[in-house]
């Protein structure tokens, strides 16, 4: 019963953060046009409560959060934590991630998705998804990446540590480590972000990489 509650709760965190981010953007637009004064922690709390209320709206007896869970109940920890970082940075105008942290975040999502999804959907007889059920080379590879990022003082390493902790605590509906590291939306977002970085890098005026 407790596990059901925990997995239900965590399946809603990522969509809730995505909605908070959208509302933040709307609030920033309103502030620019209409002199909307609320900002910082006050605005974040207000937006968080509004987003929570939206997630709890029931349609055909199912809350919107659970409609989203019908499509994806296992949002990866890096995507969820990256959204939390973006929301925090927007709310308090304080950078948490440096450009190299974002590059690591999007590279991990993009490369991991390319390595996982085609094979898991039947491209070859090797199914890397099997490696996520129990201790396997996947755990060693992720541990090495995490250690290397920590040594490089890259903050994306903390997101990988959070993913390992969440897997250990079984915070998601899935019991497969891959689902704590990656999800298709994270993969897609990562590819879009890397493409944007690449286009920006090729443009005459260089802008450092950052959140979407």
């Amino acid at each position, binding site marked *: 019963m407790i596990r059901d509650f925990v997995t239900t709760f965590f399946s809603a965190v990522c969509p809730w953060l995505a909605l908070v981010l959208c509302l933040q953007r709307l609030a920033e637009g309103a502030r620019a046009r209409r002199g909307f004064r609320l900002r910082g922690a006050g605005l974040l709390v207000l937006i968080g409560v509004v987003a929570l209320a939206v997630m709890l709206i029931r349609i055909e007896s199912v809350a919107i959060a659970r409609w989203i869970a019908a499509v994806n*109940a296992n949002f990866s920890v890096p995507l969820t934590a990256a959204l939390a970082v973006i929301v925090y940075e927007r709310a308090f105008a304080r950078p948490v991630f440096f450009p190299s942290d974002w590059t690591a975040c999007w590279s991990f999502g993009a490369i991991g998705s390319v390595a996982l999804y085609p094979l898991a959907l039947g491209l070859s007889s090797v199914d890397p998804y099997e490696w996520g059920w129990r201790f396997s080379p996947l755990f060693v590879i992720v541990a090495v990446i995490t250690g290397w990022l920590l040594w490089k003082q890259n903050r994306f390493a903390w997101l990988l540590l959070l993913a390992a902790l969440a897997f250990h605590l079984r915070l998601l509906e899935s019991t497969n480590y891959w689902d704590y590291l990656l999800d298709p939306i994270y993969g897609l977002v990562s590819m879009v972000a890397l493409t944007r970085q690449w286009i920006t890098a090729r443009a005459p005026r260089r802008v450092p990489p950052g959140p979407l």
Partner: protein
Amino acid sequence: MSHVASIAELFGGGLAAVWYAGSREGAGDVAIYFSVQSSDDGRWSPARAIVTRASAARELRRYIKKVGNPVLFSDAEGRLWIIYVTVSIGGWSGSSLNVTMSEDEGRTWTRSRRLTLSPFFNLSELVKNAPVALSDGGWAVPIYHEFIGRFPEMLWLEHRGEDIVATKSRMSAGWYGYQPALTPIDAGRALALLRDDDAPRTVSMARSEDAGHTWSAPERIDLPNPDSGLDAIRLTDGRLLLAFNDSPDGRENLRLAMSVDEGRTWSRIATLVEERGGDFSYPFLIQARGGDVHLVYTWQRKAIKHIVFNPAWLDERWSRTTR
């Protein structure tokens, strides 16, 4: 419409069966029905809906568009288990698998539990045939995937306390048959017979030498398959029995074939039903403790039929075929 039946022997005697039925396949009124056959008079109880779209949505706490493909089996402690399919978006290739269990021979069922078996939105995991009990108390369940690639897989289920632990392994990749029927040969070896949707429309077969953890590439055998479900069991005397549609392009018959050499050769031994324009499909076989073989199948997509035959009848059919 009634479709995809499965049958299991109850701990205290008698049989239970499940299938899905409704106004049409995939309709909102489709539910999973349950019935028990009394060991006293052989009558089947009135069918009772045990999983509906609404009950699945409530128990799984999410939108459910349709339910289907229930597979019923019983364990050594007398519990009944059902693995069934739900779809939230899209067609059958958008399926996910769920488990429910009964400790009182089907009178009440536990809250359904969703199994996460695919990294891509947990899409496209389906089941059709019976699992095989493992010596450690777990189950090897033949399942299949049909989104982009269509291939057979093994679901490994364990019941640890209140928790159900599910893992999965690949039988083959790409587009090599699906809806595996799992048939153990001995403690280490097993066969999987596969439905095929590709030319030349024959049954395929894969072999495992390590208790189902790895499989040979599927090879075609000399029996046709009209892209239709089949089932096979190993009888207590070691012979293999296969129920299948004996045609490359239709479901107008349902036949039995037998193998005495671990699936290398098959002989047709009986025609169970044959009718021009008929639709007889999705056979499901078990051998009960007393030796009788029970078969349930979809009759004209309108009803579920149950046939019983004893070992003596199988012997007689086999000797007539090989005479």
